[in-house]
Structures are given as structure tokens and as C-alpha cells.
């Protein structure tokens, strides 16, 4: 082990360390990937505001040295919608998980995608509820096990990146924690995209998902990801049956379309010649 400190430490609230994440968790890789993607996108870190809900992945903003809003379960995107609309200068990033974004918060996810509001949503999909101890989530694979599915899941999982694409997002991609370079590139592109951007990162939870599904170690889980990953470009050569249980990675959408907050601001400007107000709560005079 080197004594040299990570160059990314400057982005962290060091006084909050050590963190709460389990050893072998994918979140560390994703935090690193996020910071690299942010540097590659040449973002001004001081201008980034992070919003999250409840769950393991929602704890990330608490460790980042920027304005951070750790909200209620599933609702991060609705808080972020208000934050971004109220102050369009901010670069708003949402960290969420599969339970937070797709179960309790599913409605907010699809509506934010429909609006194409300029948020960057990083969804860490570990196919399980980690923080509460291994219950199944809306992305748990068919027949996988969880503490609330002791006989195996009889439901079918959401495909989040595809769902968000269908709902109207202008950028959506899925990678695994093994595809670090691709993940970094997608985070960079998502941050730069002036619209709703969704990066789903399939991540390992050896503590709960692994233990309940005969993939006890991080290496077992990594091997599982490696052996079951298919690129979007390869899709035509697979039948629907063959795709069951596979992790399809790649970009699902990357296009330009009108952005929600811009449209609101343009309304004020074009109809009434008004520039958007910023920090108006500090004002004593209103017209």
C-alpha cells in the first residue's frame, strides 16, 4: 500500500471518513469513476450540487465536499427538480439505487425523463436492498434470492436504462463496475448533456446479493458480471430467451432535445423580458 493520498481526496469531506460501505462494495469504484468523469468533463466542482434519497448509494453525497441534499426515500429526483428549477445555474447530480429510483421513486424517475430536465442521475443498481438487509428490489433477476424472496423471485425485473429511454431521457447508458473506462466516459457525457441523463451502473453487493445467490465474494460477483455481459451492438444476434438474465451494456440514447428549465426561463424572457431570478429569497423588494 502506498502512503500517497488519492488525488481525489480533495473532493471528499475527510472529516466524515471512514465511510459506512461494506468491503467489496462497488460504490468505491463508482465514486472514483464519477470524479474522473467529472474531471474529464471539466466541470466546476464548486457548482455541483448533489441530491440523493435513501439507501447505500444515497449516502455518497454525504461524503462529497459540495452542497448535498440527502432527502426522503425515493424522492430525490423531485427535490432535484425543484432545486434545478429554482437555481438553473447549478449542475445537479442525483445519486440513487435500484430500490430508491425504481420502486418507491419510479414515478419521479419517468416523469423527470419525460420532462428532459437537466439532471444527471447515477443509478447504482445492485439488484437488492442493501441498507435494510437484502430484500428483493424491482431489478432483482427472475428466480434470484433475497430475504423477502426465500423461495426465489417470481417477478420480472425492470430494465432501467431502457425504461428511462422510453420515458424520454436524452441520455441513457448502462455499464457494470467492471467496465470502468466506459462508465467514466458515460458519466462525462451525461454531465455534459444539457438534458435528463441516466447512467445505470450494475454493481456488486457481495454482502447481501452475493451471499443469498451463491456469489459470496466480490470476485464471484465480478466473474458473474463478466460472463453475463452483452454489448448493445451484439443484441441482434441474441433471441429474447437467450437474453434472460444477461446484463446489456452500452448507450441506449444520446440525442439533443429541448430542456425543461431552459423552456421555463425562456417563457419569462420571451413573454415578459424577465431574466430568471437567482437567490431571490434574500431580496426585500419584489416587482
Amino acid at each position, binding site marked *: 500500500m502506498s502512503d500517497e493520498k488519492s488525488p481525489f481526496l480533495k473532493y471528499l469531506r475527510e472529516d466524515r471518513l471512514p465511510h459506512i460501505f461494506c468491503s467489496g462494495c462497488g460504490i468505491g469504484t463508482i465514486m472514483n469513476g464519477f470524479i474522473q468523469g467529472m474531471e474529464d468533463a471539466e466541470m466546476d466542482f464548486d457548482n455541483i450540487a448533489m441530491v440523493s434519497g435513501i439507501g447505500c448509494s444515497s449516502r455518497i453525497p454525504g461524503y462529497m465536499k459540495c452542497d448535498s*441534499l440527502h432527502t426522503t426515500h425515493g424522492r430525490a429526483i*423531485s427535490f432535484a427538480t425543484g432545486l434545478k*428549477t429554482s437555481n438553473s*445555474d447549478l449542475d445537479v447530480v442525483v445519486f440513487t439505487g435500484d430500490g430508491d429510483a425504481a420502486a418507491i421513486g419510479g414515478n419521479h424517475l419517468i416523469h423527470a425523463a419525460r420532462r428532459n430536465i437537466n439532471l444527471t442521475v447515477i443509478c447504482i443498481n445492485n439488484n437488492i436492498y442493501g441498507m435494510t438487509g437484502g430484500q428483493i428490489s424491482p431489478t432483482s433477476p427472475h428466480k434470484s434470492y433475497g430475504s423477502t424472496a426465500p423461495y426465489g423471485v417470481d417477478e420480472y425485473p425492470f430494465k432501467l436504462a431502457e425504461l428511462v429511454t422510453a420515458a424520454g431521457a436524452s441520455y441513457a447508458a448502462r455499464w457494470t463496475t467492471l467496465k470502468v473506462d466506459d462508465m467514466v466516459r458515460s458519466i462525462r457525457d451525461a454531465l455534459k448533456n444539457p438534458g435528463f441523463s441516466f447512467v445505470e451502473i450494475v454493481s456488486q453487493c457481495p454482502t447481501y446479493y452475493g451471499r443469498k445467490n451463491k456469489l459470496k465474494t466480490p470476485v464471484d460477483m465480478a466473474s458473474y458480471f463478466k460472463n453475463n455481459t452483452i454489448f448493445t451492438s451484439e443484441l441482434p444476434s441474441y433471441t429474447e430467451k437467450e437474453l434472460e438474465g444477461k446484463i446489456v451494456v452500452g448507450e441506449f440514447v444520446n440525442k439533443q432535445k429541448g430542456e425543461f428549465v431552459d423552456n*421555463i426561463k425562456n417563457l419569462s424572457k420571451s413573454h415578459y423580458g*424577465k431574466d430568471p*431570478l437567482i437567490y431571490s429569497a434574500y431580496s*426585500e423588494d419584489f416587482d
Partner: protein
Amino acid sequence: MTEELFIQGNEACAEGALRAGCRFFGGYPITPSTEVAEYLARNLPKHGGSFVQMEDEIAAAGSIIGGSWGGSKSMTATSGPGFSLMQENIGYAFITETPIVIVDVQRGSPSTGQPTMAAQGDMMQARWGSHGDYEPIALSPSSVQEYFDFTIRAFNLSEKFRTPVFIMADEIIGHMREKIVIPDKIDITPRVMPDKENFLPFKNSDEVNPMPSFGQGYDIHVTGLTHDERGYPDANNPKTHDILVRRLTNKILDNKDEIISVEKSHCDDADIVLVTYGAPFRSAITAVKDAREEGLKVGYLKINTPWPFPEEEIKEIAKTAEDIIVVEMNLGQMYWEVERVACSQSNTHLIGKIGGELPHPNEILSKIEEIGGK
């Protein structure tokens, strides 16, 4: 120059919000509150503000909390079913000390109930609707003018005490039209930027902490978890929790005198005092007048701020009044607060009207006559 408008209650509320500096509204349509949203959808763009129709009331409450941390005074308007959905995020606003204004235009309930009829069935939901200990501020208007005035006061109180404030209106006040006078000068409580030196966003202080916004360089962490003075989670520490929750409740309780507002008339010699708030007050004043004409010594106390509950003011009435009649549009909500405070000194009675119509002055008069021995 003062300005006069003949205007609907819900529109007066929206106009009051604009004058108070509200520049973000996140809402969801629901009868009988929707005119507040419609008015602001039309008028916020004129003032450089933003209107968003959210996907549900949970999102509406979330959006205004986000809007407030973005640096805009923020509001939503709803009715009972939507108010129920907002409760979790309301608790979040209390523990994170986020100033927001929530208008609840009450309708017949429970459940879908009577969407187009008035009620006051959400008064205890305003008090206890979210889980845990907190001290809400709620204002109840009895006229379109008050709906306008109280909305401005709601914004000022929410900023001053960094807390959610509820406007507990009802369908009658929401949909009636009256003349209002808009004063030429409106006092606005602006947010104050904290000093960056040794800044502790959630300092354990008797003073309300000044509030920064996101993007101003404070690198603030805001969480619904029990947090320390830095805003960092410290959820397993009993002491941190005790200090935080007591500070949040005390900042309201210690300032009750400034927040509480009541209006009294004919109480000095009254044997019977009517206690009302919101729309039923309109019938109560007629009943008092009629009773006085019959020679009965009757007065009224109108509660402008149901929460925090005006205990001292009710105790004062109970010293002299033999009987107190609470008139409200539910089967007894504020009644039990009055009973709790006054029961050792006065007999308390309830006229609890449900169904959507105001209690008629004659109904109140009959009760007065019954109690007064006529």
C-alpha cells in the same frame, strides 16, 4: 397607493404569495385548491419565477423543499388527500429547517370525501400528520382579505423561523369572492446570508440559524437523519437527537407570543364565549350579534393561528366565561385543545358541523339559548 381588487380567495392567496416574494411553486391539481396553482402558472413567469406541475403531491412537497434550498421562496397548494401524501416530506422540512409554505384548502373528508364542499377536518393532520415531535405554525383565514394577508405572514414566519408554515383554508374561503385591499408597502422578511467564518449550519443556538442556499460556497450537507451542528448524520447518538429535536420545537414554543394571533370581541362581560377559526367565524359573529340583541352576554374569540395553539388566550377566557362553545367544521379537533386548556374552569361545548355547509348562525344561536337558559 393602496390597490383594491375584487378577487377569489384562492387567487388572493396566490397574489399574496407573489407579493411576499414566492418565486417557485411546485404543485399538483386538486379541488378545491387548484386556482392557486392556475393563478401562479399564469403569473410567476411575469415575475421571473417558476411554476412546475409535478407528478403527484409527494413530488410537489419535495420540489418546494429543493426550490427553497435553491434560494427561492417556495410554496405548494393542495387539499386533504394531497396534504396526506405530503406528510413525510413535511417532516423532512421540519428536521432540515427548510422554509416552505403549504396551503391546504380543506374539503369534506376522510378519503376523497367531498371535493367541492368545505370542512376543517385536517386541523390535527396539520398538527401531527408527520411522524415524530415537531411544532408547526398554521394560519386559518376567515375572509379573502385574511387569505391574502395570512399568506404574506406565512412566508415571513417561515423565513424568520426557518420552518414549514401551513395555511389551513377551506373550500368556502377558497372559492368566495370579496374585495381586498393591497397595502402600498408590504413588509417582507428576507433570508439572511450566514457569515462564512466558523459557519455551523445547524448550530445549537437560541437564535434561528441564518440559511445559506446551494451554490453559494458553503458546501452544506442537508439530511433528514438526526444530524449534528455541522449537518453530519449522528443518528445513533441519543444526545445529538435530544438536542436537535428540542431546539427545533423550542424555536417555535419560545416565540409563541410573537407567532400567536387571536381576535376577541365582547368577551369582558361574557358568560358564553364562542371559539372559532376559518369560515365558521363568519356565522359566529352574526350569532353573537343576535344573542346580544336578546340580552345574552356572549362574545367570541377567533383563532388566527391554530398552531401553535393559543393556550394562554383560551385560559384567559376560561377565567371569566362559564361556557365556551367551539364552532368548527369537523366532529371535534380544535375542540379537544380548548377542552384540555379550559376544562377546569369552564364548561366546553362543540358545534361540530360536517357535510360541507357552514353552521348557520341560527344553529349557533339555538345552542347559546340552550346553554344560556332561554
